[in-house]
């Protein structure tokens, strides 16, 4: 851009000089941008020394005409910190074996067991090509890939769009397929097998994988000169190894709530690795309404999701874009989320009860509510647009019903999660 504009401006001035006319603005304006670059730097930090993620995302779009474009995106994530293991606090010191099976760590009495051996870097890449198909249709296709230390994702997707009614209505259908391979540290645990002592990998197996297929059908409808509504339905199916290989459950005494002894000679209490079904089917209904005022605009969206694990969730998001001036804007953002627990979610397992076929103490499958409050500020300069977004995320789970026995009654079994989101953005054209 720094190279092209002065040259364009000089050519325009030279031409005008030759013709003896005043400089004409359209000469410069006709220089269509070659590449649009969008970059974001994200800091996501949870309280209590839990997860911290620093992520850089860079997208490049080359538009060849109104309907033809190439999109490339690169994301690099760096994750550190500790994450809940699924075990519950106890009134005694608890000892756990690390996922690799090569070491152990202890958690003080009364503390929430966190696995702090987690450190990862993720690199993700995607590329999409979009092109017209006849007068009123467009198609796009692309691939995505991401790699982590213990995880590899490869996916393809395609989408077809058609306009109707003077482009007041656009219908679309999309399909995505991916295969994800997992190579967990120390091996993928055998579901419901007990945690073993250091050096004993008899509860671990090798690698595993899962396939994901998504179908998306939607309509974007212009409601009026100012309003637009998008409604979509999506169906997603996952098959394969759907466990989180680093999550397990405490097995406790049904009266005292205290941990019970683990395998003989292990020196550990009894913790069993989680067991989720090997398939999951999700359905979502999504709607977003966008409205333009004379100066400002707003958007509200809603999502309802249900799956065959017994989870139902609802999400509402709203944002109001206050265009303070031609160059500056401020956008307050709100989000509310609620979900029911999965049928097999168990905060703990009790000694003596029949072992269920499926069980997980992953707080993300619990009955929970979450809120996000944030704001984004943007400012356009002659060269591009920068923005900063601040967000506060709070999540609270209700996971104590029927399990707060004995010692457990005095503990916060699933502590609330609070996170801060800081995002810097810069968009420019080359």
């Amino acid at each position, binding site marked *: 851009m720094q190279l092209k504009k002065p040259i364009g401006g000089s050519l325009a001035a030279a031409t005008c000089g030759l013709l003896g006319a005043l400089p004409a603005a359209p000469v410069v304006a006709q220089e269509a941008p070659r590449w649009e670059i969008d970059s974001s730097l994200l800091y996501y930090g949870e309280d209590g020394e839990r997860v911290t993620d620093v992520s850089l*995302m860079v997208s490049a779009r080359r538009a060849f005409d109104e309907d033809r474009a190439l999109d490339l995106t690169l994301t690099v994530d760096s994750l550190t910190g500790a994450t809940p293991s699924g075990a519950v606090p106890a009134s005694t010191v608890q000892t756990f074996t690390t996922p690799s099976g090569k070491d152990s760590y202890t958690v003080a009495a009364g503390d929430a067991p966190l696995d702090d051996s987690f450190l990862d870097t993720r690199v993700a890449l995607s590329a999409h090509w979009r092109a017209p198909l006849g007068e009123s249709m467009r198609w796009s296709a692309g691939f995505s890939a991401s790699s*982590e230390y213990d995880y590899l994702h490869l996916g393809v997707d395609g989408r077809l769009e058609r306009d109707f009614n003077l482009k007041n209505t656009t219908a679309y259908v999309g399909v*995505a397929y991916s295969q994800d391979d997992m190579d967990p540290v120390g091996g993928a645990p055998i579901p419901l097998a007990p945690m073993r002592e250091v050096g004993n990998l008899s509860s671990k197996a090798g690698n595993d994988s899962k396939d994901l297929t998504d179908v998306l059908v939607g309509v974007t409808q*212009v409601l009026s000169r100012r309003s637009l509504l998008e409604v*979509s339905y999506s169906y997603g199916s996952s098959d394969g190894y759907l466990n989180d290989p680093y999550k397990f459950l405490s097995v406790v005494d049904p009266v005292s709530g205290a941990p019970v002894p683990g395998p003989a000679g292990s020196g550990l209490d009894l913790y069993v690795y989680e067991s989720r079904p090997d398939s999951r089917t999700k359905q979502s209904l999504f709607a977003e309404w966008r409205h333009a005022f004379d100066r400002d605009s707003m958007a509200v969206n809603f999502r309802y999701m249900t799956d065959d694990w017994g989870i139902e969730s609802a999400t509402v998001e709203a944002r109001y874009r206050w265009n303070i001036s031609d160059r500056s804007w401020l956008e307050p953002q709100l989000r509310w989320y609620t979900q029911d627990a999965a049928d097999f979610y168990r905060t703990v397992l009790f000694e003596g009860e029949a072992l269920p076929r499926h069980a997980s103490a992953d707080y993300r499958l619990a009955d929970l509510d979450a809120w996000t409050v944030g704001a984004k500020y943007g400012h356009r300069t002659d060269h591009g647009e920068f923005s900063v977004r601040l967000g506060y*995320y709070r*999540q609270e789970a209700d996971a104590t019903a029927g399990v707060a026995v004995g010692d457990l009654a005095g503990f916060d079994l699933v502590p609330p999660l609070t996170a801060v989101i800081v995002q810097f953005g810069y968009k420019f054209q080359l």
Partner: protein
Amino acid sequence: MTALRNLVFLVFAATAAACTTVQPWERDLQARADMQPDAHDAAIDDHIYFSKEASSGGRGFAGGGCGCN
């Protein structure tokens, strides 16, 4: 949750009946940059919430693509 589901279907039905044809030269407001969804915000939000909640997708593909903790 059932009441919520009924409300959603009611809203969809009502809005589907409320459409008017807007001519191409009347698209000035809808073409404004602030009326377009921000792809980076959406991708970052999807990644965060996919890692912390049991739901994903809706706006786009539910996907996977990470062994998020």
